[in-house]
Every structure is written in structure tokens, then in C-alpha cells.
């Protein structure tokens, strides 16, 4: 029994990949790029030409800001570290933060949104007023303030990037959960004595799962962007942790003209990763939410004009026979 369940699940995942490949080639490509980044992050210690020692990339000031060469494929940065290695370790930071924050923020959204919808009443009202007020404070500012509270570092970044996003995203989850809650089977479950928690876990959450997955896939790009922005503003990970955003602000800006590779590499890396995430997110959304599919369907202008012309000629012909 357990085995078949497992196989079915695996098939569902493969099915999803197959659909992605068949219908959304670009999204599939985006997923591939993301997987590539994840692999680079996992095997950073193996592939990086210059290894990290004690959590540090050693600087060789003699080799500072060397242009790309065979020895240093992307050149070196202003502190003489191999740029390719820095970028590879930076990918690790971005991947860890991007994935963990996306998951955590979605989990927070689901918890807040579903409890608020299922419990309802006063609790829902007060919680929503709080979220209203919270939403009025620009997210960037909240993140900066939270970063000041928690201090720099990976752990605080995970919290800071996921909490505001989670609270903001709970709105969408809540409205979806309300429509599930108001449906017949949920009322039935309540009538049969199902507790709030039971209904949340067995009825509401499974039924909003497509939306949750969509949310997950869609917020990945934004999270990575936000992470690099915070690092750029200097409110990010520790300065010794390689990070693309921090590389740009600490060296890329000042060396943009004399050593453009230092500034170009992190910017390009962020762009590629966010682009891949956006493409993947779009594809997932299109598959899970058929309402949003673009295109004019059967109402294309040419077709309508053709039908209208046909109708007119037929009418004319009918008038001809009558008269």
C-alpha cells in the first residue's frame, strides 16, 4: 500500500516534468538552470579552483584585480581572490537563502492564511487589520529594520527574508482557503464533528496546494533579488561570506571601470538566476492555473472578422433570395 502510494507520487512529479517539457520548453530550461545553480552550490568545494579555508577565501593582494586569464577564468577581485571561486561560493549563499526563504515564507503564509480563514470571526478580523497595517510599511524598510535587530548573518537573513514575505503572501492563501472552507465538503466535515485542525489539514490545505506550489515557484526569483539587494545595502550576511550583492557594493562599484569583470560577473549571475526562476515560475503558474493562459483563444480578431464577413454575406444572400 505504502509502496504504490510512493510510486504514484513519483509519477506525479515525473508527469509534471513531462508536462513542463512538452508545453513549456522555456520553463523547463529555467528549471534546468536552477538545478545547475543548485548543483554548483552543493559541489562548490569540489569545483571551485580556489578552496575556502576556515570559511574564508584567502586573499592574495599581489594578484589583486587581475583580468581574466587561464589561471583565473573570471579574473581576480580587488583582494586578489579568484573571482570564479568567489562566484561559486556566492551561488551557495544565494541558493541556500533563495530556497530556504521561499519555503519558509510559503509555510508562514499557509499557516497564517489557513488559520485566519478557518478560525474566522474576531481572530480573522484582528489578524487581517494587523496585516493591513503591516502591509503599509514598505517591505524594504521592514527588512532593513529586522536586519538591524538581528544583526548580519545567514540565520537572520533567512528569518528577515521570509517573515515579511510570508505575512504579505498570506492574503492570497487566505482568500483561497475561505472559498474552500465555505464549500460543501468542509461544512459536512464540520457537521460530522471535524475539528478546525482536522479540517485545515485534511480539507483546506490539500485543496489549496496548487496555489501554494504556484506561490512557491513564483516567489523564488523575488527572494533571490531581495537577498542580493539587502547584501548590496550592507544589511546582509557576514562580510566574510561570499555574496554576489556584497561583491557588487564592496568592489564592483568602485572598480566598474578599471576592472569591469568584478562588477559584471555578480550582476550577470543574479540576472541569470532570477530570470531562470521567473521563467520556471511562469511555467508552473500556467500549468497549475489554466485561467491565466495568455493568447486570445478562439476570439482572435482575424477569426472574428472572418465570421462577421461570412455572416454578412450570408445575410446579404438571404436578403437577395427574399427580394
Amino acid at each position, binding site marked *: 500500500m505504502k509502496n504504490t502510494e510512493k510510486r504514484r507520487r513519483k509519477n506525479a512529479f515525473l508527469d509534471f516534468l513531462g508536462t513542463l517539457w512538452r508545453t513549456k520548453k522555456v520553463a523547463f530550461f529555467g528549471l534546468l538552470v536552477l538545478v545547475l545553480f543548485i548543483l554548483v552550490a552543493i559541489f562548490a568545494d569540489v569545483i571551485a579552483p580556489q578552496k575556502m579555508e576556515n570559511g574564508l577565501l584567502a586573499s592574495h593582494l599581489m594578484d589583486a584585480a587581475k583580468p581574466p586569464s587561464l589561471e583565473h577564468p573570471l579574473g581576480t577581485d580587488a583582494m586578489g581572490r579568484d573571482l570564479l571561486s568567489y562566484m561559486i561560493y556566492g551561488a551557495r549563499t544565494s541558493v541556500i537563502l533563495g530556497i530556504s526563504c521561499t519555503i519558509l515564507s510559503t509555510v508562514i503564509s499557509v499557516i497564517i492564511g489557513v488559520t485566519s480563514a478557518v478560525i474566522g470571526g474576531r481572530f480573522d478580523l484582528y489578524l487581517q*487589520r494587523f496585516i493591513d497595517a503591516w502591509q503599509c510599511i*514598505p517591505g524594504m524598510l521592514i527588512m532593513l529594520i529586522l536586519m538591524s535587530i538581528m544583526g548580519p548573518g545567514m540565520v537572520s537573513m533567512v528569518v528577515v527574508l521570509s517573515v515579511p514575505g510570508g505575512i504579505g503572501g498570506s492574503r492570497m492563501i487566505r482568500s483561497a482557503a475561505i472559498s474552500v472552507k465555505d464549500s460543501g465538503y468542509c461544512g459536512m466535515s464540520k457537521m460530522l464533528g471535524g475539528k478546525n485542525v482536522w479540517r485545515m489539514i485534511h480539507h483546506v490545505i490539500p485543496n489549496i496546494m496548487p496555489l501554494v506550489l504556484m506561490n512557491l515557484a513564483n516567489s523564488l526569483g523575488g527572494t533571490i533579488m531581495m537577498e542580493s*539587494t539587502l547584501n548590496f545595502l550592507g544589511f546582509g550576511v557576514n562580510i566574510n561570506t561570499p555574496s554576489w550583492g556584497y561583491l557588487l557594493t564592496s568592489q564592483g562599484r568602485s572598480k566598474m571601470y578599471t576592472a569591469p569583470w568584478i562588477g559584471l560577473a555578480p550582476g550577470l549571475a543574479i540576472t541569470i538566476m532570477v530570470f531562470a526562476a521567473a521563467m520556471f515560475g511562469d511555467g508552473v503558474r500556467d500549468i497549475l492555473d489554466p485561467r491565466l493562459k495568455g493568447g486570445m483563444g478562439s476570439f482572435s480578431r482575424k477569426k472574428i472578422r472572418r465570421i462577421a464577413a461570412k455572416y454578412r454575406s450570408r445575410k446579404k444572400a438571404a436578403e437577395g433570395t427574399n427580394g
Partner: protein
Amino acid sequence: MGKYLVKRLLLLIPTLILVCVIVFALMRMIPGDAVDMVVYNYATNGQVITRAEAEAKLGLDKPAVTQFFIWFGNMLRGDLGNCLFRGDTVWSVIRAQLPISLELALLTFLLSLVISIPIGLYCAAHPDTISDGVIRTLSVVLASMPVFWIGTMVLVYPAVWWGFSIPLTYVSITQNFAQNMRMFLVPSLVAAVTSAGMNIRAVRTMTLEVMRQDYVRTGWAKGAGEGRVMFHHAFRNALIPVITLFGGSVAGLVGGSVVIENMFNIPGIGQQVVTALNNRDYPLAQGCTVVFAVFVMLINLVVDIAYKWCDPRVSLE
């Protein structure tokens, strides 16, 4: 309409109170170095002040709830407290810098509209053609580029290639229009272009959604011209989600101004917040955040009213 407006304005009050509570609570949670900093500041000026005296000076010797009500009460009277290190009142700093941030935000918003609406409509009118595909891909690429990266390149390369540089000192728009525009046009264009990436796609999707409706089909069928169908039938109805989107993007715009102002060295509130947070200047950071929040609240109100204006079917009650 008037009744609705009064109701909305009244609803702003509890929201404002909640915003103040949140901001105040968050600020109190920042590890407290302010007292040390004040003591240190006095010491560098050759004065000796004990920690207790410094706390009393900052009003930190009272319970947090009392502190909140003192701050909130003063705020309602237009007094946001004194900066810890600048020797100015918070309100005077904000009053000097608010117009700068507002101008930047407004310019960015207008440029973003001017860029994204025509292009989005063009894409919606020619869906699934080559130009549509190119524009869509480009807009995703634009949305994927970090604004601080584009900004860096825009700051550096034109300066080197054509000797174009952005003025570093702020001149108000009434003093010298050309100089002011030289300073603001490039930053707001950078911000607008990056936000246009997302907006173009949204305008396209919303318009296409509307173009599937029966009344648009009727429009084509009765032989209305392209412009008439696009603007009169499709776009006007697509405006509602588009307004929601642009209204929602204002909060992001304000957040984005933090990055833009820091990068282009524009002395606005966004830059002030970062400096204040780095210096642990609570009253200033608190005041700036509240001002930003009030701005966003007002924008949300305008968006809700704009719904009514562009779709008479929307009931406001």
C-alpha cells in the same frame, strides 16, 4: 462617494495607530546602543554624562508603553522628536527631504506608466507574434536585472564614454529646473525601466484577459477600428487590475527608492533611513518609516477611489 471617503479616512486612523505600534515595537527591539552612543558623543565633546542621565535624556527611563504614548501624542502634534546626532528635529529633516523622495517616486511612477502601458497594449494587440515574444522576453530580462547593477553601470559607463555625470548636489525644482532634471531623470529612468519589465507583462495579460470577453468580440464584429476596440472596449476594462498593480507597486517603489537614493546619492528619506539605522538614530528612523507608511496608506486610498472612477460597477460600500 463622500460618505465612502469619510469612512475610508476614518479607517485610516486605526491603521495608523497599528502602524505606529508596529514601528515602535520593532525599533525598541533593535539592540540598544543609543545610550552608549549618546554617552560617547558627549564624551567626545568633553562633557561627562552618566548612563542614567543619558537614558533620561532619551526618555528611555520610562516604561515602554508610556514611551509609546508620549511619542505618539507628540507625533499627533507634529513633533516627531529630536535626532540623536544631528541636532535637528526629526520633522525638520523629513520636511527637507520628503519633497526629494516624492519627486523621485512621482517621476519614476510616471515614466513607468509611459513606458509600460503603450508597450503592453501593443503586445496585447499583437499576441504571439515575433515582436510580442521579443518584448516579453526582454521585459522578463529587465525585471530580472538587479536595479543596483543597472544603476552602477549607468553611473560609470556614460561618465567614461561621454563625460556625462549626474550632479551630486541637490537643487530644488523651482530653483533650477534643468539641473534638477539632470539629477533625477536618470535615477528615475533606471527605476522605471526595471519596474516596467513586470508592468508590461501585467498590462498585456490583463488586456488579453479582457479581450476574450464577449463585448470585445462584439466590438470587432461591429467593425470598430483597432484603436477604438483597444482603448474603449479592452483597455478601459483592463484598467482595474492594472490600477491595482500600479498602486501596489508604489509600496515597492518607496522601498526601491531606498536603493536608488543610496546608489545615486540623492538626499531623500530612503537614504536617510539607511544612515539612521546604521547610526542607531531611533527617532529619525522611526519618523521616516512612519512617513513612508502614511504615504503608502494614502496611495492605497487613491487606488480605491480610482477603481470607482474607472469602473462605475464597483460598489464602494
